């Protein structure tokens, strides 16, 4: 593995190896030494959470990094090509973590640079380190990734994290349930891939009926801005809100995940239930990102 660009590049075996490595790092069985390495955190599109998570991951393994956030601080603004910006920065750094609003930007970077590139999000396309930390969270709470019943609700059309997650789970014999407002449904290409692979999935209207079957409920935010007409948003928004009251008949191993930030789609009374896992999920980003950096630098 030279770069970490897309979940499409990574097979089941590599996923499991990376998760195992993350677990070893988290439990202190191994402690890779990042101190000789300088990472460039290039957030051309700012993202506080992902940025902090990478920064933490690096610092906790004694690594060093420098950052940019937004294009204001770079010569991109002066009309320099992205290629030139990246080639220049890569002269100083040992690896690059990159978020960019342009789709395919990270793949492009990996092709023109000699140093490892990690995709921290490219537009609506991929966010593979999020997918990995989601998988890590699922495995950690369920003990396995195999044969799970997983529901995804909210904005399933534009949320790239849900797309990557569904694709990443293809090889693990999952059963999926999708609940989304009419025009925020799972895109056709994701559905087509499931049909091709004979993976069972159900598009449901009412989340209540399926809750007792679930191992994982993955909630995403429905953004008001996605609706052309505000009344349409008002009509659907409450149908996709998870409250503690809803969770009475769930399985003991059941967990609620959310990529954060949340607004009101999970009420705060859920936080006190044993089913809330979204904050630990965010924390899991640290060992997962450490594992990816460690792997690319060939330290394990």
């Amino acid at each position, binding site marked *: 593995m030279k770069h970490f660009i*897309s979940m499409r590049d990574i097979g089941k075996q590599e996923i499991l190896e990376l998760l195992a490595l993350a677990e070893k790092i988290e439990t202190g069985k191994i402690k890779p030494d990042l101190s000789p390495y300088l990472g460039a955190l290039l957030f051309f599109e700012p993202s506080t959470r992902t940025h902090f998570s990478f920064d933490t991951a690096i610092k906790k393994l004694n690594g060093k990094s420098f950052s940019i956030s937004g294009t204001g601080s770079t010569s991109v603004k002066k009309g320099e090509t992205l290629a030139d910006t990246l080639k220049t920065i890569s002269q100083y750094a040992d690896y690059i973590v990159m978020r960019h609003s*342009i*789709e*395919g930007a990270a793949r492009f970077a990996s*092709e023109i640079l000699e140093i490892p590139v990690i995709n921290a999000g490219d*537009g*609506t*396309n991929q966010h593979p380190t999020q997918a990995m930390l989601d998988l890590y969270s699922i495995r950690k709470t369920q003990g396995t990734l195999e044969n799970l019943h997983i529901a995804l609700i909210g904005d399933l059309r534009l949320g790239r994290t849900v797309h990557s997650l569904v694709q990443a789970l293809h090889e693990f014999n999952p059963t999926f349930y999708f609940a989304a407002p009419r025009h925020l449904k799972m895109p056709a290409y994701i559905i087509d891939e499931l049909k091709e692979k004979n993976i069972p999935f159900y598009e449901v209207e009412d989340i209540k009926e399926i809750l007792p079957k679930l191992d994982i409920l993955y909630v995403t935010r429905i953004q008001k801005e996605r609706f052309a007409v505000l009344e349409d948003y008002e009509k659907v928004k409450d149908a996709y809100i998870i409250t503690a009251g809803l969770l009475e008949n769930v399985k003991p191993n059941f967990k609620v995940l959310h990529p954060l930030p949340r607004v009101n789609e999970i009420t705060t009374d859920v936080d006190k239930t044993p089913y809330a896992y979204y904050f630990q999920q965010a924390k899991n980003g640290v060992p997962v990102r450490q594992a990816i950096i460690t792997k690319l630098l060939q330290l394990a």
Partner: protein
Amino acid sequence: MKKQLIVDPIKNGTVIDHIAAGKSFAVAEILNLKNLDNLLLIGMNLSSKKIGKKDIIKIENKILTEDEVNSIALISPDATLVVIENYEVIKKYKIKIPPKVHKHIVCPNSHCITNIEEVETEFDVMKKKKVEVRCKYCEKKYGIEQVKFKF
């Protein structure tokens, strides 16, 4: 008269036969025929034993490049290619859909890096009921009728 023209032999050049009816315009665009001075014959909606109705294109003094043949295969997978030298058929074959297309498809996604930086496109080709292509960079998938070719 039309039939006469179509069966008229050419001395040197290429015949693209069994083009799906109606697709000869798209093939002509790939080959940039409107800017070509060569002797050119385009027949449309001819009856064919094999495929019912077909289009056919004859171009004198032109040998197609592999990239051109591959692109034609995407929009008309059943086409056959006949290469003629000195009035004789020296090569005749059914074209094949390539697994990948480099450089000659423009990504329809305006947020794709290939439309912003200087980078050759690359598409994976998937053939199910119809031909679809997926951009290596933005990973978006398109029906072949949604993309533009660039030569």
